[in-house]
């Protein structure tokens, strides 16, 4: 058998036999779905929340605001003067009060008084006051149904159409984001874990001088390509297990729990692109880790150095809340093309919106070229720093080594 294949086989088997890898592959997706299921179940069987009636005071100095004093679970209690309202507030009879001044109709100003320190008026209170004012202003001018519709004028239902005008099989919504989000998180964790394996493995081989025995049998290129491909294939196994099991688990969870889980769907292009980005991500991180393993004097220092790029993997996840508002902003385009963040950024964006074909093409091309480039650089520095056991080379030294060949 070709020696690269032998190393590939050894690394692949060594990786998939690790406990951490098995846990990530088999247990984490199940746990993620169980988590959603448990949440759903708890929500379903819980007692309906006890609605607490809150009383808010008000002083009508403008006149004409005496109807619609029940707004949902909030009662509005009228006081004649601000002093009466203040006394009631201090006694705890009302949780707060507001004053409608005489010039309200011309200014729109409402003065609100509370004992609590607040950044701004809570939205519930603001809505209650707005609806109370609106209802009274329209009272006897329009029918009550119209008053209600003015208070709650729309309930948006979005339907995505295809270019032919038919209803698109893949609709948007949060149900669409769940799988890519879970997948991205797992991918990030998996990349971090696999980087650790490779850096640790190379560090141990250097520390134990096993690397000398290996290089007395194979070339640096065979060793590194075998290791990187072994880890990449282990990653592929992981993604295949997830992609095969997730729809199955989703169906099970959906029939068992219904509700939100029933709305979860896997975006159409996600499966293919998911596999592509997963493999490329694995290969990139394996190549980076091999480089770090090459220049690190031992496993511990290698792991510290690898934190630099493994932290970057999580970068798109930290800013994922912005993604929902501006999924196609320049920053997300950059994150989709920058090789270290590309796998996660692309996965997340696929769940939220469509990514332009050129962006995907550039992103995948940059990732592929980065893998080849980093691997070639690693092969070059590997021999130089192979026997450097006690000292980590400085950045300048590495650059000089690369220049001198």
């Amino acid at each position: 058998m070709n020696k690269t294949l032998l190393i590939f086989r050894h690394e692949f088997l060594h990786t998939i036999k690790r406990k951490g890898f098995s846990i990530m592959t088999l247990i984490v997706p199940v746990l993620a779905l169980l988590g959603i299921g448990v949440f759903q179940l708890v929500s379903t069987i819980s007692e309906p929340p006890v609605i607490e009636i809150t009383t808010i005071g008000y002083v009508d100095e403008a006149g004409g605001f005496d109807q619609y004093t029940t707004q949902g679970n909030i009662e509005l209690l009228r006081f004649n003067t601000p002093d009466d309202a203040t006394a009631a507030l201090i006694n705890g009879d009302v949780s707060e009060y507001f004053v409608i001044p005489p010039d309200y109709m011309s200014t729109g100003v409402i003065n609100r008084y509370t004992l609590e320190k607040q950044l701004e008026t809570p939205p519930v209170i603001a809505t209650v006051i707005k609806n109370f004012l609106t209802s009274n202003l329209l009272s006897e001018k329009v029918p009550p149904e119209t008053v209600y519709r003015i208070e709650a004028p729309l309930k948006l239902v979005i339907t995505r159409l295809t270019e032919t005008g038919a209803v698109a099989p893949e609709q948007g919504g949060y149900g669409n984001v769940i799988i890519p989000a879970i997948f991205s998180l797992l991918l990030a964790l998996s990349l971090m874990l696999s980087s650790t394996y490779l850096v640790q493995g190379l560090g141990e081989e250097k520390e134990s001088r096993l690397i000398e025995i290996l290089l007395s049998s194979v070339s640096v290129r065979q060793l590194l390509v075998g290791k990187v491909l072994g880890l990449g294939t282990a990653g592929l196994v992981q993604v295949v297990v997830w992609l095969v099991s997730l729809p199955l688990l989703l169906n099970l969870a959906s029939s068992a729990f219904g509700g939100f889980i029933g709305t979860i769907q896997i975006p159409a292009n996600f499966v293919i692109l998911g596999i592509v980005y997963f493999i490329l991500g694995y290969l990139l991180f394996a190549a980076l880790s091999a480089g770090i393993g090459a220049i690190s004097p031992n496993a511990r220092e290698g792991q510290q150095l690898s934190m630099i790029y493994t932290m970057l993997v999580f970068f798109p996840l930290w800013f994922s809340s912005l993604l929902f508002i501006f999924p196609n902003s320049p920053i997300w385009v950059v994150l989709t093309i920058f090789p270290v963040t590309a796998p996660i950024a692309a996965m997340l964006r696929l769940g939220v919106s469509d990514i332009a074909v050129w962006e995907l093409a550039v992103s995948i091309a940059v990732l592929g070229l980065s893998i080849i480039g980093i691997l070639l650089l690693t092969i070059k520095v590997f021999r130089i720093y192979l026997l450097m056991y006690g000292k980590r080379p400085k950045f300048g030294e590495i650059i000089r080594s690369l220049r001198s060949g």
Partner: protein
Amino acid sequence: MPAAEVNHIFKSYADKAVVSDLSFSVARGEIFGLIGPNGAGKTTTIRMMMDIIKPDSGDVTILDEKLSEASKNKLGYLPEERGLYRKLTVIDSIVYLASLKGMDRKSATEKANELLNQTSMLPDKRKKIEELSRGMGQIIQFLVTIIHDPELVILDEPFSGLDPVNTELVKRMFVDLRNQGKAVILSTHRMNEVEELCDRILMINNGRTVLYGNLAEIKSRHRSSSVILDFEGELGEVPGVIDKRTHKGGVELVLDGNTTPQQILERLVSTGIVINRFEVATPSLNEIFLKEVGKKT
């Protein structure tokens, strides 16, 4: 054709010469000693021979060619500091490393079982490497070095960490390899092991050649003109003896340049003393080394 030929190799690190103009060859069917004190440049020389590091200049020919993937399969290498995959079993470690030397799994497994049996380690073959004692680990590494029946075996400090029983076992294996026509390069700072096993030697210090050639000839060249005598009786003046030095095992008689040990023996017999031991004194390799290094400094 020699099994290994090294021509004028140089290696420096940060402008410090580690190996300077070393040349030597190793024949098939011999045990060749690469000897010198710690830091002499032995390991660097071996690493250049194994193509693990490149010489700054000079060239190395292994089994009649530059070291290639194919010729790596004919080499066995035991590095100075040893390591194996700690979590792998003994049999898996041997078979994996043997397969990297071009053996198929079936024959590697068969050969591994055979070697483990020879070294009485067959019952341990399912144990993880981390469960073995240091000495047992060393034996496994030695088996990994020779399992693929290499034509040239390079061993860097092979006896370090071995107990006397395993040292003898490994020595026997070296001799077997030589008897099979293999070339064995034994790098060590332990001169007594070299004296016992090696046919030819290269003695280096500070990366330079101190002595190179047939061990017996070197020792003969450095034979001192003295004899060791253990006797009973009264030893008076003996013609041809210019000095007497008392040692633990007897007396060393230093001869003048014109008297041979044979003549001295005849004269001693004629004095009437009882001779229990008479030995022509030969210096140890260590003494030769110290003498040669002293000359050059």
